[in-house]
């Protein structure tokens, strides 16, 4: 009993610094934001307006476009998951220079969204190098206006997302793969299991925790991390066609006077959505693991 209390105590003490810090920088602002979501607020003065912000959010029709835009990114996750998996499995085959490839794939992840944004704007400009190449290859007539239409603008954004995530995926999955003990493979080989069989019976199942980590963090990213990328590449355009929710929060908070209350309400809405989504995802994956 005494021993137990001591252990609990050291547990709580270990958490204390982190919780104090989170309390000041995250929890308190959260409460603050929640309160202000019921007010009209310019940053200095606020007054209570009840549910009006929420009423606007749910009635002006914007929310659905924003959610659709987040959903587009969300739906692109399986693609990058598959790509990262394939690349990792190929690299894991110990091809010569796998370290080099892994490092190279990681480089785009390191680039700032400011850099990515300006770079992509130049490369995907109508007279840019991408069109030039596509024309040289005879694939298009080289006049595609990538960023002027929602579908192609999304393609560019998703390309950036993939481009910046592949390195991270390869890194994580390679580490996951290396945790599988070689003996399992060897005994499987002795049992006469072929490459594909080993892939689906051993490799994939043991990667499940890593896959969950990858999908959960990227799904969260698709809700709350897109701002800087979208801001840099398309500014949410054309129109508001590629604007995700967190970008709209930015617009409302910093580019619209007296709208910090509205921005707060929108963040609360986003928070609830993401919480529900990740909860469902973790629930689902846990069931899958069992």
């Amino acid at each position, binding site marked *: 009993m005494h021993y137990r209390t001591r252990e609990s105590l050291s547990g709580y003490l270990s958490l204390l610094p982190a919780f104090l810090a989170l309390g000041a920088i995250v929890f308190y602002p959260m409460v603050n934001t929640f309160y202000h979501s019921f007010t009209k607020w310019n940053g200095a*003065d606020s007054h209570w307006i009840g549910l009006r912000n929420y009423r606007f959010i749910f009635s002006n029709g914007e929310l659905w476009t924003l959610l659709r835009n987040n959903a587009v990114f969300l739906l692109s996750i399986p693609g990058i998951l598959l790509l990262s998996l394939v690349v990792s499995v190929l690299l894991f085959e110990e091809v010569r220079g796998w370290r080099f490839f892994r490092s190279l794939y990681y480089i785009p992840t390191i680039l700032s969204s400011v850099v990515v944004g300006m770079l992509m704007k130049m490369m995907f400009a*109508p007279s840019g190098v991408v069109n030039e190449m596509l024309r040289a290859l005879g694939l298009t007539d080289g006049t595609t*206006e990538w960023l*002027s239409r929602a579908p192609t603008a999304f393609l560019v954004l998703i390309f950036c997302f993939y481009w910046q995530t592949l390195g991270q995926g390869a890194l994580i999955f390679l580490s996951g793969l290396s945790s599988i003990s070689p003996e399992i493979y060897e005994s499987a080989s002795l049992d006469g299991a072929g490459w594909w069989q080993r892939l689906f019976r051993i490799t994939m199942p043991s990667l499940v925790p890593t896959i969950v980590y990858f999908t959960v963090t990227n799904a969260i990213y698709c809700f709350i991390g897109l701002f800087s990328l979208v801001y840099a590449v398309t500014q949410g355009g*054309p*129109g508001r*066609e590629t604007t995700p929710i967190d970008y709209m929060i930015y617009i409302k908070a910093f*580019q619209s006077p007296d709208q910090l209350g509205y921005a707060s309400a929108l963040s609360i809405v986003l928070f609830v959505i993401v919480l529900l989504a990740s909860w469902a995802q973790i629930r689902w994956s846990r069931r899958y693991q069992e």
Partner: protein
Amino acid sequence: MNGKRKGTALLLAGSLMLLSACGNGANGNSENGGSGNDGSPAASGASASASASSSGGDSGKKIKLVFWNTSYPTIDENDKTKKKEDFYIYKAIARYEAAHPNVEIDIQDIPDGTNAMTKFQTAGIANNGPDVTNLWSGNYTMDLKAFIQPLNSYLQQTDIDSMTGWNAVTENFADSGTIYGVPDGSDGTIGILYNKKLFAAAGLDPEKSPPTSYDEFVAMLKKLKDSGVTPIGSESDGDFVYFLDYWFAQTVGTSGINDIVNGKLNFNNPKLLKVMQGYLQLYKDGFVTNDQPQTQFYNGKVALIFGGYGYLNDARAALGDDLGMMKIPNFSDDVVVKNGGIGGTGADFVVSKSSRHPEEAVKFILFLVSKDEQIARFKDGYGKLLNIKNADAREFADDPFVIKQQEWASEPSTIFWPDNIYPSELSDYISSLNALVIKQQLDPGDFLAKLDQKRDEINAQK
């Protein structure tokens, strides 16, 4: 166990690296901060002593003004070896400090446009704003007035009388009332800059016979296109602010723009719909490219762009005597304002509410906008004309287009920037949606209806 030892070694190495990194960072800071050095002695010296005076407090008499520079260039595309202290604004500050030994100006570069406003807003919320900065005028400034000092008590009538553009910084754009900024220069009047050579190749001479109506304009563009050149280069938002807004404003008049803002008139009315359709037709006919308009124009790939004084220097440098300039043709005969253009004082200097020396701040601002300084920065190639009432461009400029710009700007037909009159959120919304319209993904009627909806929502939230 082997692995464990390896791990410890790695950790050690990692933490050493981290430590040395910390050390480097700290050293780097103190070294630079302390002595000021390579490349920019003036600047680092200034900031070092600035921090000394603010923390030390030993020089109680010296007043430090923080100036957020959002508009003066500090890098030169044409002279890449130009040093920081050789730029106009640094020289101007040196002049001011020499004349006012008790004042020290701490200049800090801040991003321009909407980023500047974001930063000004957050700083204002924390009562941490700069003494002086430059913002866009009109509603862009008024939207931030909770954080801006009213300046009436610091300004003399003579200051006000000597300059133009005060409506753009006065509450409700009135002739008198609370003044929130000091108008900064003039953007001239937005017209058409064109390439004479390309026009001549298409058999056109707009100097002799300028297009005066929509139909003549279209005929001209068609000739250009038939000669094998893209007629118009425009920004990806369809040059809403420079071009479409002019047709809007001339159609409903300045009072009409105010009525639209107040909700007395809708965007979605037959006249503006007609404008939209005419405008969109230019895109449908393939007269416009939205790809790097200025660069394309300077390199002779498109025949014309919309622009005012701001582009004149670069365009002249690129095209020389081949550069032509004319007004944007009227959309139709029954417009309210004829033969004009958009322009005026699009920017202003403001003093933030957190400034502890507003009086000194205003003095510094008045120095920056004084006739001598405006001429000096003009000569340095700054992208603005003067907003001094008795200044004649002929005294200091020899480019005939500069003189023409000045003349245009003083004509009553020059309409003040409508995007500075709309609520800033609405301006932002219009240019994002217009990017859809010109690519025919949004019907012009729906576009106008959406603008009304947005306007109503903004007004309802007031």
